[in-house]
């Protein structure tokens, strides 16, 4: 413990120069902006900064990259809340609860609460990173394909909880989601499925789907129903935007639980952050005394997932700095950056270049603090900005969505994907089909499929691989519990509702 604090203070000594502080601050701002733009997520943000980072000394360059990474996680929530357009999969839940608050005229509160839980989540993740990184990494590697498969299944089982009133509709949309996710090359068999045009060889980019389904779908729906956001009078009085004690108390528990969940699951590669947000949401909904408020702007449903989302950033860095194994799209690009800086990512990184890594961690801690303060201060700006463009909101959102879709791979194909899913999203909303199960299936089904096939191959055809491993068995029991509780719970509610008649 003491060693780590000494290392960390050494890291701070390396970071605390005026130039580095400015770089971290600017990086956070750029990250917030990039994350706020639909379509541009952590991977794009880090990649955009790479050429700039290489012109800098190693520590400054890495601070720039990690600052942008952290910033995108703060930024992702802004468009989710303001215009119902998540920039990336982990921000979907934020839109689910944040945007209803916005429509009720409590957008400032949503931004405030989510900034605080983001900060707490990030800080918790960083503390774990500082003290327990090597220990966590040494356990995390023992999770293999069977555990990952079951984890994805656990994520998918939250469909039952996201379903809303009609479980059949939820399962139906989930099935369509699975179908959509099968497009493109399958690395297990080497076959390519449904590649009608070359752009489909790598499958449909789910971020384009998210942009269409939520952003464009919402615009179409609002145009038809002439929805007007309650934005009130312009106000720059910060006090109005700071959440009160009652709201903070309501968000405290979910924030802590979300932080723990995000750190633990964020360590795992692949869809760590996304699974963490959905599980945090499902958990809060299960624990809530008033689950009927979920989907209509419930603070616990906003705070928990937001905390887990940001806690997953340091979580994803743990396997990167201890083993040289990237845990997310963003860290995969960081891996490339470390190599280009002349570092050798791997088990010896902390030993050979510990000073640089600790400086990077110190930079992250500062970035998290700066981002928290600036995001709180910027709330009135965002709210008033939205008020300013309110009359043209539909046009602005469509423009942002199309530019975002284009920037996914700099071609027009994804614009068409977003437009098609925009229409689908509109029809789903109009006919009361939930979008959550659909997008969850799109993101998680291919991972579940591949891990399942890997597991069976590892077991050389023997299914017992799922019950012989203790962690796998635990996960299996949890999935069964979620299903039983979900289905029985719904039956109980239905009985209660029908009894008076």
């Amino acid at each position, binding site marked *: 413990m003491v060693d780590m604090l000494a290392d960390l203070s050494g890291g701070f000594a390396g970071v605390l120069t005026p130039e580095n502080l400015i770089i971290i601050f600017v990086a956070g701002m750029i990250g917030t902006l990039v994350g706020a733009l639909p379509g541009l997520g952590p*991977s794009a943000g*880090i*990649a*955009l900064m*790479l*050429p700039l980072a290489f012109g800098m000394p190693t520590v400054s360059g890495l601070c720039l990259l990690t600052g942008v990474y952290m910033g995108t996680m703060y930024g992702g929530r802004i468009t989710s809340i303001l215009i119902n357009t998540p920039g990336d999969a982990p921000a979907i839940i934020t839109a689910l609860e944040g945007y209803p608050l916005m429509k009720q005229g409590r957008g400032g509160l949503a931004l405030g609460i989510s900034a605080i839980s983001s900060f707490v989540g990030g800080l918790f993740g960083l503390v774990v990173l500082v003290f327990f990184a090597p220990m966590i990494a040494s356990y995390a*590697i*023992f*999770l*293999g*394909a069977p555990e990952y498969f079951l984890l994805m299944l656990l994520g998918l089982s939250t469909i039952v909880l996201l379903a809303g009133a009609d479980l059949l509709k939820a399962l139906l949309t989930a099935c369509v989601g699975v179908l959509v996710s099968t497009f493109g*090359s399958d*690395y*297990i*068999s*080497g*076959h*390519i499925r449904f*590649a009608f045009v*070359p*752009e*489909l*060889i*790598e499958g449909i980019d789910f971020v384009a789907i998210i942009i269409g389904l939520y952003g464009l779908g919402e615009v179409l729906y609002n145009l038809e129903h002439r929805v007007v956001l309650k934005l009130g009078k312009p106000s720059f009085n910060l006090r109005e935007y700071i959440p009160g004690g009652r709201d903070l108390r309501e968000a405290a528990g979910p924030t802590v639980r979300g932080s723990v969940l995000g750190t633990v699951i964020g360590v795992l*590669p692949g869809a760590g952050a996304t699974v963490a947000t959905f599980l945090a949401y499902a958990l809060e909904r299960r624990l809530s005394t008033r689950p009927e408020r979920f989907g209509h702007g419930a603070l616990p449903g906003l705070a928990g997932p937001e905390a887990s989302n940001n806690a997953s950033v340091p979580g994803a860095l743990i*396997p990167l700095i201890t*083993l*040289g*194994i*990237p845990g997310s799209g963003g860290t*995969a*690009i960081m891996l*490339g*950056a470390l*190599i*280009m800086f*002349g570092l*050798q*990512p*791997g*088990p*010896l*990184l902390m030993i050979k270049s510990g000073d640089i890594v600790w400086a990077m961690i110190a930079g992250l801690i500062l970035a998290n603090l700066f981002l928290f303060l600036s995001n709180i201060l910027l709330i009135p700006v965002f709210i008033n900005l939205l008020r300013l463009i309110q009359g043209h909101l539909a046009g602005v959102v469509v423009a942002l969505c199309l530019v975002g879709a284009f920037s996914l*791979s*700099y*071609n027009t*194909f994804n614009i068409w994907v977003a437009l098609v899913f925009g229409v689908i999203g509109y029809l789903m909303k109009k006919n009361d089909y939930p979008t959550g199960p659909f997008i969850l299936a799109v993101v998680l089904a291919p991972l579940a499929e*591949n891990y399942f096939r*890997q597991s069976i*191959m*590892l077991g*050389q055809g023997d299914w017992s691989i799922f019950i012989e491993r203790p962690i796998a068995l635990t996960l299996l029991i949890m999935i069964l519990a979620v299903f039983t509780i979900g289905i029985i719970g719904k039956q109980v509610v239905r009985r209660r509702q029908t009894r008076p008649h």
Partner: protein
Amino acid sequence: MQKTTSLITAGLLGLALAGPAMAQDFPTRGIEFVAGYGPGGGHDTMLRAMAKIIQDERIVDAPINVVNKPGGSSAVSMGYLNGHSGDGHYLMSITSSHITTPLTTNIGLTFEDFTPIARLGIDPQLLVVNARGPFQSLADIVAADRVLNVGGTGTATIEHIVAIQLGEATGNSFNYIPFQGDGEVVTALLSNQLDFIITNPGPAVDFFEAGHFKALAISTEARIDAFPDLPTFQEQGYDITLSLYRGVTAAADISDAARTYLTDMVERLSQSDAWRTDYLERNSVVPGFLAGDDFSAYLARTNEVYRATLTDLGVID
């Protein structure tokens, strides 16, 4: 005649480019380096390293710009380069997907529709085991009395082909399990979920130093400088010499002047010290420069190896 052909091709594609820019005074503008994958990936980092060294060492004066055309396992970038047929101002990085994507899909383009410039290096394949595991030599693996689990990246990839060839050479049957990306393969070996893996040196090299992993064989024809103590498969009696190539190709039907210029540029690059220290050594890539017709012949041979394997696996007819 060649000019006429290129004009017809361009006309058919509805792209009225090419032709006139093909005078002797090449280049007439900056050169565009095309990466078929996104920023931060292997293609992108190689091209950016090339651009930086070419400019730092003043190998050519023309400005160089790296653009990313990701999508479709390099199909999108192949289409893009094909749209610039006859124009030598484009240089695209290529590796195995330049062969496998045309074989497994119907994009209607193959490596022969481009002008191969040079192979810049190779990623040899290593057989790697966990240092604390039961297998300490290739002989131990051959003598194993059960079906061993082998890990590698993807199906019908170079790792997979090496695993198949090894099984055929030793008479063992191996259970090959494809993973998505080097990181997952390394993790699975680290936690003893696999008996051995086939991998390029990059992701494993630090684990050798840390004492976690041990390499038992390498797929080059002779031992390499980076691992002087590591015997080749051939030395141990198994004829496996397959490596992943990293090269560059230009558009079809470019002028001789452009071809000479590009070849000369990458040849001088490959001879520079900066290339060796800042790209090859950092990324554990083995030098293996091969230009012009030799490179084309190499691609043709590689194409046949992949075609045969993909057919055997039932991926293609």
